[in-house]
């Protein structure tokens, strides 16, 4: 049954400064595009009753390059990412991932910060952030700190973000080499991934990240290291299938995910040879 609306309390803020001041004093869940949060509300599985509406914080919509670092504000929507010339030039696989999130209605509201905060192992943008060794920028009333995206999640839907911290941006160092992204779902639009993968390959290194194959998004470190040491594609595929820990759920099976993940890695390594 849907959560009773009358039991919910929301405050709206227009600046990061106001947001972190509220979060210092009160336990409130930030609400951006609401594309995940309101699904929980409609299902009656919403755990919180107190919210902080941050949708109007314009300063968090910015996408910019500072030196070598690409900075994406937490409230950049998937539509913003699809349309951004900066993303197209520096991180085209993030635009590709964004085009495969939901449909246009969801892309107009869903944000990259929300995808990070929601912490689903199936989040479509997350393997991209893992593959490029992104950094999450967190702000609280006490100040700002940075957390490596690989290491941000500590378990299923758990992260190092403290309750008084707001995700304000994600930073991405310069990416050299080929970028490669694939999502496997029941259909192209409006599907949650069965397996989602992002890869980066340059002359020296291969980076591979996968979603929906473990409790959190993961980097395939053993496979990467083996490839760095000269493993063949066949060896890498086998290693990858052993390395991931997918489960059976309503969207797919562990066996299918293992098979497809290996196939995707084979295609990535072949396409980028």
């Amino acid at each position: 049954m849907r959560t009773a609306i009358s039991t919910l309390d929301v405050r709206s803020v227009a600046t990061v400064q106001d947001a972190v001041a509220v979060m210092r004093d009160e336990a409130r869940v930030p609400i951006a595009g609401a594309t995940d949060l309101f699904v929980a509300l409609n299902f009656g599985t919403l755990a919180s009753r107190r919210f902080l509406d941050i949708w109007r914080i314009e300063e968090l919509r910015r996408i910019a390059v500072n030196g070598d670092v690409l900075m994406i504000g937490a409230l950049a929507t998937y539509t913003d990412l699809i349309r951004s010339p900066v993303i197209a030039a520096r991180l085209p696989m993030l635009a590709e991932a964004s085009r495969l999130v939901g449909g246009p209605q969801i892309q107009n509201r869903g944000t990259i910060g929300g995808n990070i905060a929601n912490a689903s192992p199936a989040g479509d943008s997350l393997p991209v952030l893992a593959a490029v060794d992104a950094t999450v920028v967190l702000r609280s009333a006490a100040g700002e700190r940075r957390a490596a995206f690989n290491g941000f999640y500590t378990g299923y839907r758990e992260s190092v973000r403290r309750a008084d911290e707001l995700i304000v941006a994600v930073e991405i160092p310069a990416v050299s080499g080929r970028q490669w992204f694939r999502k496997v779902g029941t259909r192209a639009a409006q599907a949650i991934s069965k397996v989602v993968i992002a890869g980066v390959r340059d002359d020296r290194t291969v980076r591979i990240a996968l979603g929906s194959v473990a409790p959190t998004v993961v980097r395939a470190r053993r496979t990467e290291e083996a490839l760095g040491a000269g493993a063949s594609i066949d060896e890498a595929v086998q290693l990858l299938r052993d390395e991931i820990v997918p489960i059976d759920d309503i969207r797919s099976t562990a066996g299918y995910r293992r098979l497809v993940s290996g196939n995707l890695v084979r295609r990535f390594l072949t396409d980028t040879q």
Partner: protein
Amino acid sequence: MRLTLNGEARDAVSAPMSRLLDVLREEFGLTGTKEGCGEGECGACTVLIDGAPVCSCLVPLAQVDGANVQTIEGLGDDHPLQHEFMNEVGAQCGICTPGMIMAALSLGENPTLDDIKVALAGNLCRCTGYAAIYRAIMKANAR
């Protein structure tokens, strides 16, 4: 809460975490916007906020304070999309139709079939099939 609804300034008194969908239907009596899945998968509740299509079942009222909201009622009775959906029989049960038309409004001039498919990727129809819907949108844009 004050918003511009189909071109008119309106005050909303529903609770701030109310779904925009419910505010439209229950407070303003605009029942053209339909509820399908209630989870952002079907697009039946699509409206435009500041010109962009969104699922009104996933928007809290608090977030449209000051915004410009357009619903199917805002089109009046004589819009080319409405005529062509009838002419091409782009509707059977009709539940998905308002959402389809609102999503189609975001298309630029002379869209290709591919453009239309992308624009409508977030809208499900379970009875007409999509061919008649795509045809209706093509013809409406050619008018």
